[in-house]
């Protein structure tokens, strides 16, 4: 170790310059980072629901369907209709938009005094303006299932403009273009943007604004904490600098390798800041503590001592992150694991190489700890927290255990109460227009989450078309489905207009000849294939509730079973089912990654401290802290979602460092001849201080996330802070008690 430390100082100029150069290079790369919060693209392609969903997107001209909700007192008003038409026409011309459907161009089949027509509901050259005309329009809309609740709400106060993006469109770019264009028209109606593409656009923009707002704030906050801890320039500057370098290297490599920033990976900067600065804090703290007049010697001694503990701490944290790579269903989470692991590695690297090199090169002065007798035993921290704590533990070890025991039981029970949430809508605060938009969709239009039921077969056969109608009838019986659209419905409308009655003609010839008029109509592209061998039933599911979705899947499977036929094949997919998969994967991911992390942790710690049982003692308190964390989630209703699922493994990886600290210090004192009592005294007062500083700085870093615009991130911040406090407490109370009991047993 000494040799290594000497080498580091010898190469200090090389190290400093190399780091600066690499940092500049990678910082430049960050310019090229792209934000991608499209959840669907992050789903694994080998999942059948996902594969079918993507296939329908490419075969039928897009599954990226966004909605603009136009709200007015009365939609059936000439001014409103004119505005809707303006929107429709303008948006159709935009890049990345495949089609725009609104009340002013929606397909209608009618037979009136002008003749039979497969045309549009409204005459695009002469929008209804007289009271009579508007009344007629309203009546027609209300009377037809294909309009009522689909393009206009039942109460006539809202109408939709459905925008389908081209399959290869970049959602954010197209989404932003659309919103900007709409805003530029300055219409007087109230407008909302709903549907997956619009939510993805909104989230991406929140991610960007969050990063700009929160990261500087986090730096500031941690700087304050550091100042109070070290009261020196190097104490504040160096940890922040090394964290900044680690963040730049990580993001730079993300950009270089083409990985995009998602709603999960956008946490990386703050995470690295909070976690990474800890290593530098350790190093600087040790340098300060060493009683050496010569600054270089001080650095050497400190470095030799601290090298292994910091490396060990980094390894355990990295293991925590890597567990995501194996546990997770979503690529976003896997990528998060890889890059945070890398970032942690860089932070440790900076703490051990860059910080000492810089201190030596620039002769950064620090503040020596003046007390020589008891190393801070008289400080405020020691007086009000550490010493009382130590006394408590010695007098009542059993009570401490019991308290933890009760806490654990209550928490374990509350774990059952944990809610899960994969609904993208929950990302937004209720005050956010995106959330409100989805609410309106839910209330007035049956939801914004599309379900596609695919019928493969001869779509000109009356049997197949009738089977489609039967399926639609079954679908509408579900309380969460209000409207459905398919080619079968259009044939029925056409049959009615031709005077044949509201049914599928039993004569195949009639259907074949109807195609003469329907052929080439742009609306058909989205519901039937060119060769007329595959048709879609498009509908929407109104609820986000998991049990209701499960019930629906059961009914669907049963129906397909009962109605399968040689002539056609029925399959289905949709956002609700994909959400179900994500939900199932959440629990799986959580359990898997946590188990991997725990086992790996015990193993790694055991190896380095040379005893597996020590590995177990080290891990146990942190596991306890995590159980308490879950208990808090259950009791407070904070849901498990794709962001909060990360908390446990990260907390384990970071919290274990506190245990390692405690055990290392204890072993050191105990083996150097001190009694059990004194060894513990040392442990709590010495380790206690650095654990305290660490918990405070890491927690405050995470608490900055409370100011995020995204709800899951707010929860993430709170939970991480809680778990840091919990782990710190567990390491300082539960672990010592365990050590006392173990050693007492050994002695007796």
């Amino acid at each position, binding site marked *: 170790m000494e040799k290594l430390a000497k080498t580091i100082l010898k190469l200090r100029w090389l190290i400093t310059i190399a780091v600066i150069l690499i940092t500049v290079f990678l910082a430049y790369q960050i310019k090229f980072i792209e934000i991608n919060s499209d959840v669907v693209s992050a789903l694994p392609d080998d999942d059948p629901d996902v594969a079918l969903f993507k296939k329908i997107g490419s075969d039928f001209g897009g599954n990226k369907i966004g909605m603009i909700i136009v709200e007015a007192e009365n939609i059936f008003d000439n001014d409103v209709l004119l505005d809707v038409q303006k929107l429709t026409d303008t948006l159709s011309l935009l890049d990345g938009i495949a089609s725009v459907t609104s009340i002013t161009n929606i397909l209608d089949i009618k037979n009136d005094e*002008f*003749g*039979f027509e497969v045309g549009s509901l409204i*005459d695009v*050259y002469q929008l209804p303006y007289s009271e009579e005309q508007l009344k007629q329009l309203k009546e027609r809309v209300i009377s037809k299932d294909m309009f009522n609740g689909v393009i206009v709400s039942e109460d006539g106060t809202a109408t939709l403009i459905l925008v389908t993006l081209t399959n290869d469109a970049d959602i954010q770019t197209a989404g932003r273009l659309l919103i900007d264009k709409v805003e530029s028209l300055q219409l007087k109606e109230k407008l909302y943007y709903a549907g997956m593409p619009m939510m993805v656009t909104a989230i991406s923009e929140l991610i960007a604004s969050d990063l700009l707002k929160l990261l500087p704030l986090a730096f500031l906050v941690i700087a304050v904490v550091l100042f109070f801890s070290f009261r020196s320039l190097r104490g504040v500057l160096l940890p922040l600098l090394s964290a900044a370098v680690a963040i730049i290297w990580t993001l730079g490599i993300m950009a270089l390798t083409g990985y995009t920033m998602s709603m999960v990976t956008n946490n990386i900067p703050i995470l690295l800041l909070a976690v990474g600065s800890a290593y530098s804090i350790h190093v600087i703290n040790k340098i300060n503590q060493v009683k050496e007049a010569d600054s270089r010697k001080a650095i050497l001694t400190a470095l030799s001592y601290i090298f292994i503990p910091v490396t060990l701490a980094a390894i355990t944290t990295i293991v925590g992150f890597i567990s995501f790579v194996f546990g997770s269903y979503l690529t976003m989470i896997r990528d998060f694991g890889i890059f945070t692991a890398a970032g942690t590695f860089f932070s440790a690297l900076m703490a051990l190489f860059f910080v000492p090199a810089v201190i030596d090169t620039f002769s950064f002065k620090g503040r020596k700890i003046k007390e020589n007798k008891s190393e801070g035993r008289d400080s405020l921290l020691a007086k009000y927290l550490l010493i009382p704590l130590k006394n408590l533990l010695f007098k009542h070890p059993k009570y401490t255990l019991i308290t933890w025991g009760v806490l654990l039981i209550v928490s374990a029970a509350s774990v059952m109460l944990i809610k899960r949430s994969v609904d993208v809508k929950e990302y937004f605060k209720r005050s956010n227009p995106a959330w409100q938009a989805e609410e309106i969709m839910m209330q007035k239009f049956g939801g914004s989450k599309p379900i596609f039921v695919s019928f493969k077969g001869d779509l000109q056969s009356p049997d197949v078309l009738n089977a489609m109608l039967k399926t639609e009838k079954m679908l509408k019986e579900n309380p969460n489905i209000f409207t459905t659209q398919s080619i079968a419905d259009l044939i029925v409308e056409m049959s009615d207009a031709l005077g044949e009655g509201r049914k599928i003609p039993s004569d195949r010839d009639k259907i074949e*000849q109807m*195609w003469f008029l329907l052929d080439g109509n742009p609306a058909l592209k989205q519901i039937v294939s*060119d060769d007329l061998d595959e048709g879609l039933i498009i509908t929407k599911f109104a609820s986000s509730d998991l049990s209701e979705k499960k019930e629906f899947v059961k009914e669907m499977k049963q129906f397909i079973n009962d109605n399968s036929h040689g002539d056609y094949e029925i399959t289905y997919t949709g956002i609700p089912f994909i959400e179900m998969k994500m939900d199932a994967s959440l629990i799986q991911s959580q359990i898997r990654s946590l188990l991997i992390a725990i086992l790996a942790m015990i193993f790694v710690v055991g190896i380095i401290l040379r005893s597996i049982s020590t590995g177990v003692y080290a891990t146990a308190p942190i596991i306890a802290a995590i159980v308490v964390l879950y208990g808090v989630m259950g009791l407070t209703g904070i849901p498990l979602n794709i962001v909060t699922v990360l908390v446990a493994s990260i907390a384990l990886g970071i919290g274990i460092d506190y245990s390692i600290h405690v055990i290392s210090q204890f072993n050191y004192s105990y083996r150097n001849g001190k009694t059990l009592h004194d060894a513990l005294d040392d442990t709590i007062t010495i380790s206690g201080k650095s654990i305290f500083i660490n918990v405070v700085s890491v927690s405050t870093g995470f608490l900055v996330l409370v100011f995020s615009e995204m709800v899951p991130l707010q929860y993430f911040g709170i939970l991480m802070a809680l778990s840091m406090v919990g782990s710190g407490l567990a390491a300082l109370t539960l672990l010592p008690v365990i050590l006392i009991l173990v050693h007492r047993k050994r002695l007796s």
Partner: protein
Amino acid sequence: MKQFTYIFLSIILVVTSGIDTFAQDAQTLLSKMDEVMYSPKDKQGTVQIILTNRQGKEKEREAIFKQKANKSLYRYTKPETQAGIATLSLPDGVMWLYMPAFGKPKKISLLARSQAFTGTDFSYEDMATTPYSERYTPKFLEEKVDRYMLELVPKSDKSKYSKVVVALDKENYYPIKMEFYDKGNRKFKEATYTYERIGSYWNAKQVVMADLSKQHMTKILLTNVKFDQGIPDSVFTVENLVPKEEKK
């Protein structure tokens, strides 16, 4: 002073007559094109319609057509599922459709004139039999080696086009190419014509309409074309839509 006025007046005269000449040219040229396209008293033959989508897949239709002034009758023979379907277009945008499976002919409303004609890239507007001079205001653009370029602006505000740029053959005044611009002034359709001489008339042997935004193409091929056969007016009636054999 007198001299100056004289020169001044003659300049104005030349300039204005020049403008007049140009305007006349455009109007004259368009009329000449109409003559080529619409002069036959009647026309009949077989039309083959081939549709090609962006993946290169082709769909074919075939019909026998009869045309006289601004009336036309199409009887479809291919594909088999649509054989027997007949359409009758009459003046003022009236259209009747006969579908054998349904018996009685139905009147079709064409309020949406910009709509595609049964899956082709031609809109009802494109298929109109009214001369271009009546529907468009022409402007002379330029003269090239083998053609004249005209810009046509629709007279009706119900048109889907903001303008149509036409390339007219210099010698024979038939259209070589037409470029269609949408209301956003972007070119989105292009028609290419191939004309042949039959008797005293020019016949559009082939017309290819390409929709650039949808990447879709329609090719119309005319064969067995005969002009001035003296087709009686009774052919272009609703009663005649229903084939004789089916009339009971």
